[in-house]
């Protein structure tokens, strides 16, 4: 092949990759936290008996889940300013990923809500709790336990989606790797190391989620 592997340049620039990774993680954490709040509210709206709540929630989930996230990222960064909404690169990406994860997590949460026995709501009503108190103290905590396994893969997916921020020059891991690649021409080495960082981080997230799952498991 005539290509000799030489990682020296990549190691010299390793701190830039780590900075990129840190930014990727930061983007993911903030977006997913906002997305989880959106997702929870939307999930309750999805299963609401009131059409005024369920209809807009269904529209939101359908719209967002049927759009490629890259289209959303480009739209938010290039088209929104034309419409008078001016956000910087990071802000616009966080907004997009939050809205995007909100739609996916809403579906995950909805499935979790449907698996909670109706009797628990009735028991809550019977002792005089209001519907909102029942949601916060009984339904939401039980639903979260139910959905942790599927949430884990959604979160990993969303973390990987932060690489799309490279498209609008947010200096996260993929953007940094591309820069090192262009500057050094060490194509294979750069992408191998960047990939390894993604894989390791995802494995860590999965392990962390499993740990949380075990911690919250109900004793029996």
């Amino acid at each position, binding site marked *: 092949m005539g290509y000799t592997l030489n990682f020296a340049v990549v190691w010299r620039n390793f701190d830039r990759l780590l900075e990129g990774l840190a930014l990727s993680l930061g983007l993911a954490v903030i977006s997913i936290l906002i997305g989880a709040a959106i997702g929870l509210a939307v999930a309750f709206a999805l299963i609401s008996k009131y059409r005024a709540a369920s209809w807009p929630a269904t529209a939101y989930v359908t719209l967002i889940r049927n759009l490629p996230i890259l289209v959303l990222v480009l739209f938010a960064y290039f088209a929104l300013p034309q419409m008078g909404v001016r956000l910087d690169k990071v802000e616009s990406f966080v907004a997009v990923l939050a809205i995007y994860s909100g739609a996916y997590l809403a579906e995950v949460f909805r499935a979790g809500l449907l698996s909670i026995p109706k009797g628990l709501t009735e028991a809550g009503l019977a002792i*005089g709790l*209001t519907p909102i108190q029942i949601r916060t103290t009984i339904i939401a905590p039980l639903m979260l336990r139910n959905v942790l396994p599927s949430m884990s893969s959604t979160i990993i997916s969303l973390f990987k989606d932060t690489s799309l921020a490279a498209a609008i020059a947010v200096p996260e891991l993929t953007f940094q790797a591309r820069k090192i690649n262009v500057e050094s021409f060490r194509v294979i080495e750069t992408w191998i190391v960047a990939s390894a960082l993604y894989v390791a981080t995802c494995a860590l997230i999965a392990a962390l989620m499993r740990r949380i799952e075990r911690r919250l498991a109900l004793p029996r």
Partner: protein
Amino acid sequence: MSKTILEIEGLRKTYGSLEVLKGIDCAVHEGEVIAIIGSSGSGKTTLLRCINMLEDFEGGTIRLDGEEIGYHAEGSMRRRKSEKDIARQRALTGMAFQQFNLFPHMTAEANVMLGLLKVKRLPKDEARAIALKWLDRVGLGDRAGHFPGQLSGGQQQRVAIARAIAMNPRLMLFDEVTSALDPELVGEVLQVIKGLAADGMTMLLVTHEMRFAYEVASRVIFMNQGVIGEDGNPREMFVAPKTERLADFLKTSSFN
């Protein structure tokens, strides 16, 4: 006669075109222990569920200590009360369910404390003291820190009864509370209910335990096809039913 707690007048409830309750009139007095019996589909569970608004109902009124439950008149219209008002009214009655319905992510103690903290807004120490007192009363003082998944069915049902009774309700509703239990666990739950009856708690019990109804109830209501078929003293009703319906029902149910 002692004070009237609950007054039901002309109660009607339909599911679509099916009329489940076809005009129930009934008064419950302080300290009465009323067993509601009848075949499945006779409307006995629905009646219980209307009393604490777990079911909306289309006609008639239910009054608890003189206050109309669930609805209020607005001119000639009848309107459902706000969720907040209904929640406050529900706290005045306690209910135990066939399936226990304990909150699985909370310990026995936390299950009993929840209403005391969130509805009665008691301080934590006070709520815990009340919870422990009632868990003790149902014989589970040593299980306060256990989760529902770590308790037997009979123990879960006793915690559920403690959870309801700790709210100090005016009236307790029991909906077939022993039907989901293994036979050897029925006794411990009935024992708890007997104890509450002896304390003078006013109770309505939907039950299939005819022997228990006979022994503990001060009054029996026989529901038949959405109306009250017979209403009276258990000794008279079980020994000499006035209607053929009740006689047939008693023949087919396991009295002994």
